[in-house]
């Protein structure tokens, strides 16, 4: 019984990991860019949530109304002013610039908020649960999972049924020719980053309500998101969801065996997938 519970919890946790991964996967798909500071932006969103909920006396979930647009703007400006200058064939500049950003973010947050762990208070929602037979499923994790699925579904819809999505896909295919269609590369890339950080904002708020976080929490979130992407398969958003679930379940089972093994179990499953199915479990045929 306790194992089934661990697995269920793992699945729901997978939703959060899928949220971490979605933003990462998105910008890689459109711009071949990997944001090393991705995890730190998730933490930034959580801290923003902290500030908003405490000064405006809001519930964390309501704070999404402010945090999501704010992070989207940050993403747009980041890409437009800084990262667009690193785009090109060389992988080093974007990697090093985002790595530098990671260091800057972590230490700035440390400077402003100190190293104390923080948590967003979701009130009654945190303890509310649903009884399914002998299983107790927390409402908050369930909500988080549902939101993750909704976000991924929305992103898929955006990509395949809107003009913006078409623009994203075209730019990703062939940025030069896309310009001939009147698409401004710089603007499209910036919109992509804005979208990525909007998803990051959602991930950050949920992270903050679920567990405690501190300025140094970023890199681990990046790694979880990355592992979910690789396990699921590149260029496949739904695959990322499954990747997150598998990671969550692996961690859950590992933690059940020995609490100190939670992260390690996830890493080991990741390495196994890398060894056996390097293109991920649901790779999309590359074009």
């Amino acid at each position: 019984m306790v194992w089934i519970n661990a697995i269920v919890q793992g699945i729901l946790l997978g939703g959060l990991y899928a949220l971490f991964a979605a933003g990462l996967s998105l910008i890689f798909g459109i711009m071949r860019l990997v944001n090393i500071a991705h995890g730190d932006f998730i933490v930034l969103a959580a801290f923003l949530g902290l500030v908003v909920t405490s000064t405006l006396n809001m519930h964390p979930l309501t704070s999404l109304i402010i945090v999501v647009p704010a992070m989207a703007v940050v993403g747009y400006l980041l890409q437009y002013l800084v990262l667009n200058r690193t785009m090109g064939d060389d992988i080093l500049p974007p990697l090093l610039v985002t790595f530098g950003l990671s260091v800057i973010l972590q230490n700035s947050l440390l400077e402003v908020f100190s190293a104390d762990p923080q948590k967003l208070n979701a009130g009654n929602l945190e303890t509310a649960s649903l009884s399914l037979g002998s299983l107790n499923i927390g409402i908050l994790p369930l909500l988080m999972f549902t939101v993750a699925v909704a976000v991924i579904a929305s992103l898929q819809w955006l990509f395949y049924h809107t003009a913006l999505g078409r623009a994203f896909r075209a730019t990703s295919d062939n940025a030069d020719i896309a310009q001939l269609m009147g698409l401004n590369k710089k603007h499209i890339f910036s919109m992509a980053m804005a979208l990525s950080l909007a998803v990051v904002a959602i991930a950050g708020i949920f992270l903050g309500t679920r567990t405690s976080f501190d300025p140094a929490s970023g890199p681990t979130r990046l790694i979880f998101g990355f592992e979910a992407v690789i396990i699921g398969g590149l260029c496949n958003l739904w695959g990322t969801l499954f990747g997150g679930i598998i990671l969550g379940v692996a961690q859950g089972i590992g933690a059940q065996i020995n609490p100190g093994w939670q992260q390690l179990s996830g890493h080991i499953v990741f390495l196994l997938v890398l060894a056996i199915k390097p293109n991920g479990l649901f790779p999309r045929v590359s074009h």
Partner: protein
Amino acid sequence: MLCTAPLWAGRADLRFLSEIFLYLGLAYLWNLLAGYAGLVSVGQQAYVGFGGYLLFALAINTGVTPLALLPVIGILGVLIAVPVAVLIFRLHGAYFAIGTWVVAEVFRLSFAQMTSLGGGSGTSLPVNVVKSIAASRSGRESLSYWAAFAVLVLIVALVFLFLRSRTGLAMTAIRDNELAAESLGINIWRTKFFVYIFTAGLTAVLGALIFLQKLRISPDAAFSVNDWTAFVIFIVVIGGIGTLEGPIIGTLLYFLLREMLADLGTAYLVILGITAIVIMLFAPNGIWGFVKSRFGIEFFPMTRRVISKKE
């Protein structure tokens, strides 16, 4: 002059110089990986910690004096890097980078599980092991210093010779244009593989020396991203990636800044980060790259120029 330092320098100065040598060594190795082989790793701390932990484990359990263990640690570092490389070479570009980070995390979490080595809080080097290096403290300081210096010289010599060799030239070809290099019959995977595992071995040796100096090791210190990767990357990038003079300038600058700004704490890291970003955006070849393009100087003659018919 540097060889004789133990004769005229004080203890603190000796340690400081050793630290510079060890960081310089790390910088040269990371530069070789990223600047020449195109393997951007943010996980070299895996081998630093591995080397450190293995030194402690072997010294404590076999009673062999630490400095004599260095070659063994180098070989073990190479060996452990083999399965790692096989796995993570399936990833490319930035995903490869994060993969190296995951590996470092696996190392950290694994060593933290080993209670015989102090588990999560780490362990210190026992007195009898320390004494086995040399009887007197000044003897130990001198030997550690010379060891660090010797390893640095070895690393620089190996890197220099390698880059001037045929394989090294091949690698520069890979850096410039992978597809073209491949069509010339250069086996890219194998070249990168060997560079990676030998760099790992040497990094492990450096790690062993680093923690020999500190006399204490813990998982967080051994596998710290900040200490062994972030700072090293900044050194190489600011100094000038893909050049042999760059790491020297970067290291000197880094230590200068550290002395000057130490009081600022986290703000110092922010400044470092901003500097690295600014350099990457506006002077991607770093300080030395800038100097080289302006004045054409080279201390380590590496460039072969193509002289066109017009000249």
